[in-house]
């Protein structure tokens, strides 16, 4: 049994994206969902599957809509649905849609992720404290993962990622001047993306001068909360040919997590769970990292992208710093164009789904000024950090 080329992405959609849009998050979500259905050339009566991460849950802003919200708003005739936080990363919800169509549970699955963190933070309802709930303050006592982090004032994923980055710096001699290129490359690409949030130029000097958040991570190593929603249609591969677009086949997926599912207890304090998911991506395909034309790798924090580059085998373990240094290799005209829309660092935290969206845009040659030259045929999209990690390999042929 294999998932190889049994599912295809046949449509994409994205709402308005911005800081503090002050819009109903379900309204944003439906914009993205309806755009994806139309993009595929389908009608809502044909959508028989629905999948999302993380489902309806707090804290405020973290999730704009759950399965039931979208199901009911669009009155979808579902045969299969799935939503929740315990996936292999944010894109795990798309992987599960691929599984559903591959085994005939559905023909066309609508996948969505929506956030309204900028508006929620603007209303003072959330201060960027740890993801996954439980850090609500108000005298509440911590349980689960938060039990062993929050008492030590490790409030944010910024702290948890910083611990990995520092260990990587220590073991491999990685420097801030190298890590900077994740942020600088993202900003360079964002300048060519009309939907990006931050588009003004950023220099290495700007990066090195900005304030620290949690050493060795500075402000520009952290992504920007936004409001927005992204959606995909995942179809049974054999149905893709009848639709409006060239289907983008899901060649393989990476969902493995063999180490402990924990930020602080994972065995290797330089790699995170992406080590296992990244390696697994290549286990069911003839393609290799050298075949990839464009890489869209999660950058909730810059160090995560560096770790994905190593995890996916684009460079050796510990070599991520020298791989990105100078930014030429990862530029739009380089050997591995990376985060071509500006990533979450400059285009906004659409929380994983933005990377898969951009991978599709690039493979359909619709990225405008930021289009990777040479008609790219193979793309990787990866999302997650810490114990969350999932990735997909897409091909246009």
């Amino acid at each position: 049994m294999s998932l190889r080329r049994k599912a295809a992405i046949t449509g994409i959609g994205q709402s308005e994206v911005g800081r503090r849009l002050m819009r109903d998050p379900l309204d944003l979500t439906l914009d993205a969902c309806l755009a994806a259905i139309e993009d595929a050339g389908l009608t809502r009566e044909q959508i028989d599957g629905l999948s999302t991460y993380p489902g309806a849950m707090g804290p405020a802003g973290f999730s704009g809509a759950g399965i039931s919200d979208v199901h009911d708003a669009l009155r979808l005739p579902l045969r299969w649905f799935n939503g929740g936080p315990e996936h292999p990363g944010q894109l795990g919800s798309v992987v599960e849609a691929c599984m559903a169509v591959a085994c005939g549970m559905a023909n066309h699955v609508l996948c969505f992720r929506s956030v309204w963190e900028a508006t929620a933070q603007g209303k003072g309802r959330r201060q960027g404290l740890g993801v996954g709930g439980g850090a609500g303050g108000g005298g509440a006592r911590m349980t689960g993962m938060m039990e062993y982090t929050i008492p030590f004032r490790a409030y944010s994923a910024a702290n948890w990622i910083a611990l990995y980055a520092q260990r990587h710096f220590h073991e491999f001699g990685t420097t801030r001047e190298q890590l900077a290129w994740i942020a600088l490359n993202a900003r360079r690409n964002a300048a060519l993306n009309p939907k990006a949030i931050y588009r003004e130029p950023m220099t290495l000097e700007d990066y090195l001068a900005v304030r620290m958040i949690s050493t060795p991570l500075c402000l520009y190593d952290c992504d920007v909360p936004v409001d927005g929603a992204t959606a995909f249609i995942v179809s049974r591969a054999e149905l893709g040919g009848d639709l409006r677009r060239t289907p983008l086949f899901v060649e393989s997926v990476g969902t493995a997590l063999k180490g402990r599912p924990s930020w602080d207890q994972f065995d290797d304090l330089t790699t995170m769970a992406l080590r296992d998911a990244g390696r697994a991506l290549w286990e069911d395909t003839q393609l290799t990292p050298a075949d990839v034309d464009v890489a869209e790798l999660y950058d909730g924090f810059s160090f995560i992208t560096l770790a994905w580059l190593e995890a996916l085998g684009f460079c050796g373990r510990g070599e991520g710093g020298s791989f990105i240094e100078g930014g030429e290799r990862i530029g739009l005209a380089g050997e591995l164009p990376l985060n071509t829309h500006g990533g979450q660092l400059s285009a906004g935290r659409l929380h994983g789904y933005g990377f898969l969206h951009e991978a599709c845009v690039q493979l359909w040659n619709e990225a405008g000024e930021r289009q990777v030259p040479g008609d790219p045929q193979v793309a990787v999209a990866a999302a997650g950090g810490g114990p969350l990690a999932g990735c997909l390999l897409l091909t246009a042929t």
Partner: protein
Amino acid sequence: MLPRVTDANSHFWRGGEHGRLQFLRCTPCGTWIHPTSPRCPACLSKELSVEAVSGRASVLTYTFNHQPWVPSPDHPYPIAIVEIEEQEGLRLMTNLVHVAGEDVAIGMAVQVVFEQHEDVWFPLFEPADPKLRRGVGR
């Protein structure tokens, strides 16, 4: 913000009242277990007992938090992951205390000290070398 203390984890969060850093330990195979679990993850035995470790550890990694997520007088403060001497992989996220920022390093030998907050004793770590200890509080 404090942990919720239960029957399952009180040995860890309240051991500091008596100066003890305590974990569950598997009786048949000797594995130390953290966080707590009903079974030993190595041999799946349910024969577990609470035991104290020496309190000696080393710094696996650290970060200085600068961002005022919550108002606090002591930014930047060090957060660390330490490995307890008794077992490879027996780790805690914690804070380093009584140490100058420039002396913090991966591999640094540290030892546990406890800080009481209501009914909970936080295990924090200070330099094992007395020459590196500073009087600065958390």
